[in-house]
């Protein structure tokens, strides 16, 4: 069983390669090699600024040791099997939480396995960092990452953000930020960190990158969680998940809806943008998926024009049982949405900027992130 574990992935990869072989361009579903020489046998897809490929992170099931990373070839629209298993002879581990492409390397936080994998672009491990509390005794469950200035910063459930030097691959600092920190981003020389408090937090912690110290907490709506990113306009966007508005016994004045908020990194002032559960930005457009479990009538998907504030309906959320990730290809504007029903492999639907369905493909379990290669 364990030996066969990655066989379907291999089979998918082989199938992908076969499909690719018939392609005139000779592209393969293998990801691009590293800029500095690359790996033998790796074909560089695409050139210039064109986005030629995308990594897909599949979180996997809790306790299932089944996190995987796949590669989607944007030229021939083929999806590879798991890259990590075959490249390293062992699976990525339990709960792949976040994936970050920075410089020539890929970084993956694996929460259940409590480690951070530093990989080349073929997912071959360069270094494994076991993330623990300071005494080295307790796994600290790394969560999300952001990268800037030659460092990758990641949150962990010991309430900290750690700084990983991408040249030495050593942890060069750690700062306490708050209970159960989740997604984070960087803007204007600062890190913005969602402090979820495991559902009870309502702040975004600000860390000064240069001094690597926490400078303040910004009040936001309840439960800022898996999304905190810097928009193309330079603002920090964060989604608070709220308090399950509409729960039985809750009165309307107690409702805190899922909300997308915008922080101005110059002044650290917060303003609400719109109700949201998931959001992805591309230029002036914000792609939003929104649903409150107890208020089914609120369910909708729309594009918000950040300049005019105009909302346009987008894809039909009725096609999804549980959307879990949204991403926009920065060069084409195509929108990727993963549907992750329980216990089945995810289905990724690809839409053009107008919301027309272009194609679909099947990924691994609980697809949670799309990372576009933007050369």
């Amino acid at each position, binding site marked *: *069983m*364990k*030996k*066969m*574990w*990655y*066989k*379907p*992935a291999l089979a998918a990869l082989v199938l992908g390669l076969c499909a690719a072989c018939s392609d005139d361009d000779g592209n393969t579903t293998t990801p691009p090699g590293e800029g500095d020489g690359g790996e033998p046998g790796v074909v560089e897809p695409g050139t210039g600024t064109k986005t030629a490929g995308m990594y897909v992170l599949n979180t996997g*099931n809790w*306790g*299932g*040791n*089944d996190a995987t990373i796949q590669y989607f070839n944007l030229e021939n629209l083929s999806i590879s099997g798991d890259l990590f*298993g075959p490249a*390293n*002879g*062992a*699976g990525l*581990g*339990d709960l792949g939480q976040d994936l970050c492409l920075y410089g020539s390397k890929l970084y993956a936080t*694996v929460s*259940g*396995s*409590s*480690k951070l994998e530093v990989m080349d672009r073929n997912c071959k491990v360069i270094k*494994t960092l*076991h993330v623990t509390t300071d005494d080295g005794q*307790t*796994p*600290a*469950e790394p969560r999300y990452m952001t990268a800037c200035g030659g460092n990758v910063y990641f949150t962990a*459930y*010991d*309430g900290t953000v750690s700084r990983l030097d991408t040249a030495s691959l050593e942890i060069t600092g750690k700062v306490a930020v708050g*209970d*159960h920190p989740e997604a984070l981003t960087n803007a204007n020389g600062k890190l913005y960190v969602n402090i979820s408090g*495991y*559902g009870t937090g309502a702040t975004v912690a600000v860390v000064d990158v240069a001094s690597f110290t926490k400078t303040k907490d910004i009040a936001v709506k309840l439960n800022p*969680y898996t999304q905190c990113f810097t928009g193309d306009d330079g603002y920090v966007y964060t989604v608070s*998940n709220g308090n*399950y508005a509409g*729960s*039985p*016994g809750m009165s309307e004045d107690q409702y805190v809806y899922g909300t997308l908020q915008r922080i101005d990194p110059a002044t650290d002032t917060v303003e609400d943008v719109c109700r949201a*559960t*998931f959001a992805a930005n591309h230029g002036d457009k914000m792609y939003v998926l929104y*649903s409150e*479990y107890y208020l089914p009538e609120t369910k909708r998907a729309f594009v918000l024009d950040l300049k005019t504030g105009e909302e346009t309906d987008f894809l039909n959320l009725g096609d999804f*049982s*549980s*959307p*879990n990730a949204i991403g926009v290809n920065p060069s084409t504007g195509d929108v990727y949405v993963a549907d*992750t*029903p*329980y*216990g*089945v*492999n995810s289905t990724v639907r690809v839409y053009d900027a107008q919301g027309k369905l272009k194609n679909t493909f099947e990924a691994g*379990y609980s697809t949670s992130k799309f990372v576009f290669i933007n050369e």
Partner: protein
Amino acid sequence: MPGVTVTGRRLPASLSAGAPLQRMERCDLERLGALEVADAVRHFAGASVKDYGGIGGMKTVSVRSLGAQHTAVCYDGVAVSDCQSGQVDISRFSLDNVSALSLTIGQGDDIFLPARMLASAGVLAIETARPDFGRSPFRLSAKVKAGSFGLANPSLSAAFRLGRGVALAFDGDYLRADGNYPFEYVNGTKRIEAKRNNSDIQTYRGEVNLYASLRGDQELRAKAYLFHSGRGLPGSVVYDNPYAEERLHDRNYFGQLNYEAHFSPRWKLKAGGKFNYTWNRDADRKAAGWQDDRFKQTETYLTATLWGEPLRGLSFSLAQDFAYNDLSTTLANCQYPERYTVLTALAAQYRHAAFRMTASLLNTYVTERVRVGEPAGDRKRLSPAFSLSWRPVRSAGWRLRASYKDIFRVPTFNDLYYRLIGNTRLRPETTRQWNVGTTWGGRISSVWESLDLSVDAYYNKVRDKIVAVPTMFVWKMSNVGEVETIGVDVNVAAGVRVAEEWRCRLSAAYNFMQAEDVTDRGSKLWRNQIVYTPRHSGSGSLAWSTPWVDVTYNVVYASERYRMPQNTADNRIRPYVDHSVSLFRTLRWGKHSLRLQADALNLDGKNYEIVRFYPMPGRNYKFTVTYYL
């Protein structure tokens, strides 16, 4: 009580029953070399034990793929309940003082039962031994069991005859084990050799039983039960992270009273009551800090059943049960639910020399209250059941049987009220079971002393299956699933007498079970085998008695299973075969006897999995010495 193996047999009830009934007597249990109830239950056709491995690992029983929450576990006539999870961990029962285990699937033949016994799809009944004094005014037995991975399990039973028809019995045992067994895994091409850690366990168990036979054919039995345990939870094997610090403490006390009166051969009454208190503490040290949760539940249960046979062969019973359950936890947003259950069952049976018909109708009424938030709505339901057993040829031991049962499970307190995931709008999960079968039992020759055979084919339909479903971050318990099961059970048991004192007993069970998801034709799960359900499973046992030693070989098999609803290769759990051998001998001198037993378990030594990423212990040994007076 001394391990006298009774080989003279009357017709087992399992052959004449209208619905599948399997039973193991004390001698069968001893032959199996089983330490725990779960080890024995694995030998019942159609029952699957979900076992998280090791002595401290949770073990629950599911019948014919219906799920553990549809199996009632009954201890000396009274159901053991867990309103929080709806499933009973059978690992906490000792086999030491058990006299019989039986499994009924669907509608049984016995109608002189509390209403609650009719309220589930299957019933696993655990019966403890009533002391048999003979001429002696007391009985005593002391047992010491020791085995691999630090297992030590001394126990003591004493019974006293206090007067005519009055007896008092004490049973107590202590168990400890390190449980840190080694295991081998392969992650991709990387071999992992490690030991389970944080899997130690200590339990204390005590039981007092008072038996009184009163005038006018009345029986009274009172029981007090105590269970304490503390254990580490090793958790699943997580690659690159062997950390495990979670500790679970359990306390369970209950007292029960059973009264039975036979007014005449045509009228009898049964009444009983129980008070149960369960306390658990689940503590874990994580990077974000300590998590320390406590759970407390109680149950108050009352039952009365009246049975009458107004016309020869035609009997009726009316059973009325009442139960009160409550749960309080230290979790945030605990709603402190309370549940009142009223069950009324009316049953009728007609017995004729050639056939027996049983029909019952159960009315359930459940109402709930909560201290915080909103309770689930009231539930009312009528559940019919029917069974028929027919002997077409009067002189032959051949029977045909058919049964039908429509029953359901009420959502558990976790399903309804657990923090965020609970959903008070759940409907009950319903099951309908159809069974047709045939049995044959007889004696072929003086060598083949007995041969019992049963073959049953069944069809189950589960509707409104309660499953946790994610919808954009929010996981909620929902009624989404529909499952269709088609299966076949085969049981064979034979006794062979080779010579005086040279006997051989053979038994085998096989189960075919196709349990498929039929919720949505367009889904990726359409007609996928449901999780943790082997298509083929079976067990076998071969016991040899010789004048010097008794030898038993046991085997349990399950074909591949899936860990997740989608039947993909990476979800597959490999088939397993578990072999074991037991040897025992009883020495006697005067009034004393001494029984020695050695068991070698999982001879293959493979760390197979019943639950994915919970490896089972490899080859292990046990030695038992029991002294009887």
